[in-house]
């Protein structure tokens, strides 16, 4: 299981790098937009997976593995620290947190709704 979780994490990490690279090369800004996009989308995806009721091994592989490897907390902290002013730091720190919390809740709500759609 550990090897599989690691492989899903590696895929998540590679996806993070590629998304980050694509955003950075198109929108050069001093604000860490790329990491924000990665963490928002990863939080939304994890919420969605939990919302649709994914449990057991697949939950661990997708949640701990892929989403865990894709999103990153350490880069968010280091990039916040690198911002020039206290206001910008606070905005990035709190903004990303509030955004990811909303994203995970929205994903979970949507996933729950989708899983409970009447069929037939």
């Amino acid at each position: 299981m550990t090897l599989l979780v690691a492989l899903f994490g590696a895929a998540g990490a590679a996806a993070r790098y590629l998304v980050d690279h694509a955003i950075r090369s198109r929108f050069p800004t001093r604000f860490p937009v790329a990491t924000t996009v990665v963490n928002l989308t990863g939080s939304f995806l994890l919420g969605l997976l939990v919302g649709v009721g994914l449990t057991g091994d697949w939950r661990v592989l997708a949640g701990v593995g892929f989403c865990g490897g894709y999103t990153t907390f350490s880069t968010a902290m280091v990039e916040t620290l690198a911002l020039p002013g206290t206001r910008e730091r606070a905005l990035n720190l709190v903004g990303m947190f509030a955004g990811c919390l909303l994203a995970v809740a929205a994903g979970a709500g949507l996933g729950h709704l989708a899983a409970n759609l009447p069929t037939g």
Partner: protein
Amino acid sequence: MTPWKAAALVAAGGLAGTSARYGVTLLLPAAEYGPLATLAVNVSGAFALGRLVASSRVRPEVRLLAGTGVIGSFTTYSSFALEVDQLLLAGRIWLALGYAVASLAGGLGAACLGARAGRASR
């Protein structure tokens, strides 16, 4: 370096970082320790990345493998957000707030200390 070679380095680091984080979650199961595993990896990872980034003469390959790959995957934002959300939904408002503040203030403080240690090592 092409983006694909860089992504391969990051993925290789991601194997190690994710395994280590998974190991911590097994050592500190959520049923007994709540979100302590995520707090531990995130704060320690913020220190490690702060140190690496502030150190001089880090080759780009090492930065990608160890920084973006290993440390980036060791820490996680999605689990952090999910755990806060679940604590809020369970009505454990103060624990959710305490966990969020401990993560963000602890993470930022740890990155700051790491950067100081990195500069001192030059």
